């Protein structure tokens, strides 16, 4: 089976963010970029399928600027992906998601693909628009919120489960298919040291910069602000939960005056 997994570099959770000089986006200089959490689950799903279906290959694809995009592709290779393609976005900071999907589809079309996996949304902007748009541009069906995916070889169909309100649905669909995955349901693996070193030597195919023209009939990021700093919290010393509640009520009543 030929599997393509699309990944996105996003700021690491512990990164201290700041706005760029023009105030329109995140300043990438101070940020460490990592594989998005949802995409880790997508890579894990791709590798699980590859391991269960001998002869399968996993090709990682990512769109973005240097050097972060190449770095997340190397991380995907270190985890076990066989090949990688970098769709160079040029310096465009926050391209429109539909443009991203169009560029990914163009890069993906020549690659063999029975299955295209993605995280259901990115860990930074949380938009979740690319999977459906990508499926549309590729002309294949797509499903979202998937937590488990198997290939039924006898019937040549994928079966998958979707997390929905108050339960799980089981669906099936033929290949080719775009699948957007939930985060962390499959306990993504950690790359091993020898694989990390080996991943540095795997060539990454580069698709030349694609025209992502912000503002031309598309959405455009105009402002990026950090949340205002929070005013100081008060810590209450206590020995027992009852004492904590008593002290809190006293403060709420006498200082915050939320109770009469």
């Amino acid at each position, binding site marked *: 089976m030929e599997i393509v997994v699309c990944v996105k570099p996003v700021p690491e959770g512990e990164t201290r963010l700041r706005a760029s000089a023009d105030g329109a986006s995140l300043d990438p200089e101070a940020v460490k970029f990592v594989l998005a959490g949802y995409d880790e689950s997508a890579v894990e799903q791709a590798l699980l399928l590859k391991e269960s279906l001998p002869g399968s290959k996993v090709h990682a694809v990512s769109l973005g600027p240097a*050097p972060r995009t190449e770095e997340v592709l190397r*991380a995907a290779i*270190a985890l076990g992906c066989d090949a990688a393609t970098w769709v160079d976005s040029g310096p465009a900071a926050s391209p429109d998601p539909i443009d991203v999907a169009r560029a990914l589809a163009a890069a993906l079309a020549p690659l063999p693909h029975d299955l295209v996996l993605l995280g259901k949304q990115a860990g930074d902007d949380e938009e979740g628009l690319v999977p459906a748009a990508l499926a549309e541009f590729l002309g294949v069906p797509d499903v979202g919120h998937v937590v488990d995916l198997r290939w039924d070889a006898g019937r040549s169909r994928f079966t998958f489960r979707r997390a929905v309100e108050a339960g799980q649905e089981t669906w099936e669909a033929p290949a080719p298919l775009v699948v957007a995955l939930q985060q962390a349901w499959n306990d993504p693996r*950690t790359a091993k*040291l*020898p694989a*990390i*070193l080996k991943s540095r030597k795997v060539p990454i195919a580069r698709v030349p910069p694609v025209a992502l023209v912000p503002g031309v009939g598309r959405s455009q990021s105009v402002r990026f602000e950090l949340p205002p700093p929070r005013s100081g919290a008060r810590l209450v010393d206590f020995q027992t939960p009852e004492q904590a509640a008593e002290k809190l009520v006293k403060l709420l009543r006498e200082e915050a005056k939320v109770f009469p």
Partner: protein
Amino acid sequence: MPDFSLSPEQESLRDLARKFARTEMAPHAAECDRTARFPEEIYRKAFELGLMNLNVPTEYGGSGLGVLDQCLIVEELAYACGGMTTSIIANCLALEPILLGGTPEQKERFLKPFCADYQFASFALTEPSGGSDAGALRTRARREGDHYVLDGEKCFITNAPHASLYTVFATVDPALRHKGVTAFVVPRTTEGVTPGKDEEKMGHRASSTGTVRFDGARVPAANRLGGEGDGFSLAMRTLDQTRTPIGSLATGIAQAALDHAAAYALKRHSFGKPIAEHQAIQIKLANMAQSIHAARLLTWHAAWKIDRGERGTLESSIAKCFASDAALHVADEALQTFGGYGYMKEYPVEKLLRDAKLTQIYEGANEIQRSVIARELLRSYE
């Protein structure tokens, strides 16, 4: 001009170690310290990720890293727990004599099967009657046909209760002093080899330290590393390779101490403002940061020299000695910043102080490091 930037490979090695340290080691550090538990499940994961036999070339199943790469990893691991780090990296010390003094046949025979599985090896040099004076070893090796018979006791041996392999330094004739010291690879299964119980330690309590007794243990002559009398030089060359990462281990402990102290100083109030706004605390934090920065750069420099093929005895001794002294001082100042809370076991800094102390003692006590530094220094004036 020197270049202090890390390669993308080194960045990714450091990321791996940082992630492992913070997600796998840190959550268990306090519990393992309190109960002196040897967390096998964590060590097994470290092995599976390739974090255990860092210095063994890949052809023998290790990770094949240079000293600077090892330093980057060790500092990250030690940030989470010094004791666990000691046990994770002890194989590097135990296997280094085989790397430096083993024949291709011995490397093939010992390293390949060893690195294929999760297991521990121990470097057995120190004895109850002395550690630093390695020329005065009492453990005897008597030649009998194509075997040597070992008799004696080693102590303070990291991972000894858990090890499957020991690199043992013994003397063929105590009167020869340094020239009698000879190194052997001794499988634990050898009859007459008896590891003792875990010692109860002040710090590094997630690590295991113990004695090993040799009572008429018959070791094939084919397990001797180098010739008779080559052991002392082999031990010293081994420590030249492994001393620098101990500087990084100390640096990791110190960095953890500073991070705890700075975070606490920003949120703890006295006299109407955070204590980080009092100059007395600012001076502490500034001095701690200076010591850590210097320690890190000294270890990187020593590692860089060794990776270039130089022996680096002077630089690695300076790095280990400075970084370990810095770690104790920084942990002490961090504890002082916490005041009474710092003295409480509920807070993380008193463990760092206890863990830092060992780095001044093991892998060559700092008194020995200073005598090495003075010797190398004076030689340059002769």
